[in-house]
């Protein structure tokens, strides 16, 4: 099992998640963050800090998000690691509002 970043994480990169990950297993591209399932130790620290509730424990993720398991594994393998909070993307606030958070 691992933790999974899902759909809600897009065009925001608040990366609050990154600041609390004890093992630095977040990777990111221009739009999203991804968790490396090989490194994540399932501590759950990132879940409550994500402002748009994008992160799930794979053990209790809604089924319609299943495809994100593979996406996290694939993308994290090829993208650079992020170890510190990044500047928010300019689209972040709009995205948050769109999702109702």
């Amino acid at each position: 099992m691992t933790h999974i970043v899902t759909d809600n994480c897009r065009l925001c990169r608040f990366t609050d998640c990154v600041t609390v990950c004890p093992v630095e297993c977040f990777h990111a591209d221009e739009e999203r963050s991804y968790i490396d399932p090989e490194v994540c130790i399932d501590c759950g620290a990132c879940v409550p800090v994500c402002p748009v509730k994008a992160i799930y424990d794979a053990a209790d993720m809604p089924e319609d998000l299943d495809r994100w398991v593979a996406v996290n594994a694939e993308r994290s393998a090829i993208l650079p690691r992020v170890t510190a909070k990044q500047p928010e993307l300019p689209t972040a606030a709009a995205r948050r509002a769109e999702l109702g958070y």
Partner: protein
Amino acid sequence: MSESGRPLHVAVVGSGPSGFYAAEALLRSNLPFQVDMLERLPVPFGLVRSGVAPDHPKLKEVIRIYDRVARTPGFRFFGNVAVGDAVTVNELRGIYHGLIFACGAQTDRRMGIPGEDLPGSHTATEFVGWFNGHPDFRDRTFDLSREVAVIVGQGNVAADLCRILAKPVDELRTTDITEHALDALATSRVREIHVIGRRGPAQARFTPRELRELGEISDCLTLADSRDLQLNAESETELADPDNINSAKNCEMFRGFAANRETRCGRTLRFHFHLSPAAVLGEERVEGLRLERTRLRGPPFAQTTQPAGESMTLDCGLVFRSIGYRGVPIPGLPFDDRRGTIPHVAGRVNDGSMPLPGVYVTGWIKRGPSGVIGTNRADSVETVESLLADVPRLRAEEKPGGDALEELLTRRGVRAVDYRQWLSIDEAEIRRGRPRGKPREKFTRVRDMLACVDVAEDRQIREQDLRSSIDR
């Protein structure tokens, strides 16, 4: 050497998560930090070693990150050095440009009720420290010959206690739980475990992952009383908040436990709510716990309890309290007795009357016992940012750094354990665990840890002699 190239000496006190994340943040900055980590025990990693439950091995993989920090140039480990005892805060201030206290919350909150100290009434810390091999608790004994045990508190530490008491002992044999705990648990006659919460199911502090595990213990029936699970309007409002999804999940699981039919099982685990301990009963030892029913009062997310004017007695032979942790004051530093932490502003130690330049805090001793391991990372980054902003002022004074500490310790006959020596303890523990199918068998006494270092050093000397005699 240029002004900016002169080393900046910082001592980090405590080798738990917050200490290592502070060290990491310092060593990642572009300044020439020399970081010395001082730890009371000969072995590092704080509660990751002595708190995190033995049946959660994945979490302990975080140690790999700390190991990487410890191998970074500029880092030194001084194990077996208790600050306030082997060396004082004032002495350290003379040696280092900066001090970061990351010494955790070392003691439990008290219930403040009669009978709390009767034999058979224990803190979670004692029990956890005992089964995890913390030297302070090596010689505690727990009478597991009675059938009923009560755990007061409903957070993740209480969940750890439940699993260790409820799981079939064979499922623990391949973990790094200590051998003396396995022996005691193998003859345990505990059959009923009651978990008591002062407030309602919506206020229980378990994370859903931890709670779910409690419903999945083999040969253990997990129960709750459906009458206990009725929620007042305020609690319903709490559960409807999207930020409070964990509590909603917990309540769903409690309802599942309440629907479990009573079948024959080796053990039962029962959740109780709205009960506040009023007295631990017994003459010579614990015979029961008197509980008072409570009612919730106040607005959502600020509900407190009031006596509901009804009490009951639960016969039991063991009581564990797991209602929170407190830091221990360190001579020379201010202390907030109410919160059990060192007062600070953004990590700078300051109680409002006495700012202490160059002295910082992080982790549990800074913010209290909240959050998970990773929470300490963001916390330590905040503290180190404050320190970095102070660097121009800190470096104005010349400080001798770690060599001076080493000299002082030698003079006092304090035997410090360095990181290489810890690695030899680590290796020996792993070796001891192998024939038992365990990831490690911990040393549980300081003298055994130190003896292990001696043996390893002797062997190295002998190997070196051998090598040089072959060379000749």
